[in-house]
């Protein structure tokens, strides 16, 4: 089992770890004592904070959207 998988198991099951990793990925991994190889460190540095550009599109209802 790779270290990345161990981090993932922790991430999926520990809300506090999720919050910490989101705020400071590298620091949290170092403090947690996880040892990563070069490729894994690089992957962690490319931590994508919800940037997968996805969204539900608003209905295009002419004359019917929210307006003030």
């Amino acid at each position: 089992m790779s270290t990345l998988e161990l981090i993932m198991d922790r991430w999926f099951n520990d809300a506090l770890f999720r919050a910490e990793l989101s705020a400071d990925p590298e620091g949290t991994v170092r403090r947690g004592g996880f040892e990563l190889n070069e490729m894994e460190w690089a992957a962690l540095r490319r931590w994508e904070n919800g940037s997968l550009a996805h969204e539900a599109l608003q209905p295009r209802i002419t004359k019917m959207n929210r307006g003030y």
Partner: protein
Amino acid sequence: MRRSGGGALPERLPAQRQGGNVPHTRRLALLAAHPSLSKLPVEVLAGLSSLLREEEFAVGTTVVREGEQGDRLYLIVTGRAEVSTAGKPTPLILATLGSGDLFGEIALLTPSAQRQATVTALTPLLTLSLSASAFLEVLRAHLQARIAFETAADALITAKFLKQATPFSALSPERTAWLTSRLRRLSVAEGEVIVRQGEEGDACYLLRAGRVEVTVREDAGEERRLAVLTAGMLFGETALLTAAPRNATVRALEPCELLALHRADLLEAMASDSGVGAELMELLRLRDRPSRVAEVVAEHRRTADGSAITILKHPGRGVYYRLSAEGWFIWERLDGRRTLRDLTMEYFAEFQAFAPHAIAEVVGGLAGAGLVEGCTLSSEVVEQTRRRSGWERFLQRANPMTWRVGFRNADAHLTRIYNGGAYLLYTPLGQILMGILAVAGLAAFFAGSRDALAAQHGAPGGVLLLSLIPAYLLAILVHEAGHALTVKACGREVLSVGLAWYVAGPVVFVDTSDMWLAGRRQRIGVSLAGPYANLLLGGLAAIGACLSSDPLVTAALWQGALVSYIIVLVNFDPVLEYDGYFVLMDLCERPNLRQNALAWLGRNLIPALRRPEVRKGHRLELMYGLGVLLYTSLMCANMLYGVRLVLQGIITRFVPPLTAVSLAWALAIGVVLLTIAGIADELRGKKPA
């Protein structure tokens, strides 16, 4: 007199003081009333009483500190104290103690003698303390008391565990104590199966010590490891929340200590604290194996900057969803077999990026839009998660934009109209003729304005005022027909046509959401088609006004043209999410512009004003968001001053002046408050209802 460490103290009261004011009978009564000491013989209690030392602590004093060595226990005579343990970012409150409660005994019962929690005086505290040696001597002589103390100590350590590292950390101290009493302690040996796939489940388990592996048996019969869980993690909850059989097997990888929780208690814990419920739902979502909804269709295209995107459409729900190339990679793998963990590993292999949170967010968004199916919650859990606040329900009902009646089979009729002749309008010749009509109509409008105004002065006012109503209704119908037929010209579907209430009056609406599947030019074309249709209608009316010799007809037609041209202008207002808004959004390739701009502004307004780097790449959000806020402020001011006065004038005709003033103010303030609440929701990133 000695001082102990602690918080800031009032000057007149020392942190700690020893004395001898508590009478022997009171000491004896306190000892005899404590559950762990009550079974001791009276002479033992009397002996203990003589060994007790009185100590007083000022408010805020730390009586014992977590992690330090302990050599005494304390019995509270008067006052209150708080038991807490280290937590992030603030200490976690475990319990509040009062007269008759005991603390500090756990350190004396454990070999390390370390304090397990911090106890702080909430009020001036008078205690009776006992040395470790005297306490242990009593326990050695009285097994029953030892068992009682060890049970109480275990409860506190369990409560501390619950607060520090489990999904139940949000529970109040009282509910934590309750949950602690409901937990069953279990020890399992290495290799032992705790939960078996396919079996019915009636309990979930908190891993207190040790490691377990979670495996699933695939259809082919081979076993696949899903995860390895460590201390503080919960398992077995899915079967309890979904009322489905166990979906995985959990086996101990080493000797483990477990805390088992029955289904009814789990549901009660969820019901008693929304934070616990939310965390368990999150856990369920993250451990799920989601699958695509079968009827969803996908269309791929490139944006103006060359990025590959995919638009998903759920035909039954009329839902549209935009995915990046990476999002599409995830979508393709949502097959009901892969967990989010599997997806994260595959994403890592493909893009060399570790992004479990981003993947979870994509899957969560897709599930929220009804494009992905996951585990089905049991009816009790659904009932719990469906609860909404009264204020949210009020806002939902008070939102006038939610009142509409639509005709869903309108597309078939529109297709017939389009194929029956309306398609001619979209031929090159049709476009040229319409262009000529629009230009000629505008010229006729301005050229004939002097004559038309003169005719208006001579015409009876009531007739002209009445003619405005059909002119307005016709202009709206033509406007919406322009949108709808252009959707058909683009080969797309009109999802719905109907009537609705918009701000202050009824409107016809057309749902052109299917245009999300089309390219940018076609989308802009559909948005412009409405105002363009009004331009044509206005042109026809203006030319008719010029040609007419009847002053009344001239005045009415010119007025009708004016209505159409005003509708053209109003529809280019980009703040009100009319056609101009959609044109701006499509020109900039920024879907959901208003929603995203206001949510961004809500998060970043202050930093964006101070630091240029925050504004970088978000100029549109900043400008649009500030524009919406400014526009809304002006509208609110107009509502409180101008519209209120008009309302007041109308209401005065029916009720006494004072009542009219009150009613007008109440209406204006009500509308302004609803508007502010709506904007505040958008700034907080809550999607429009």
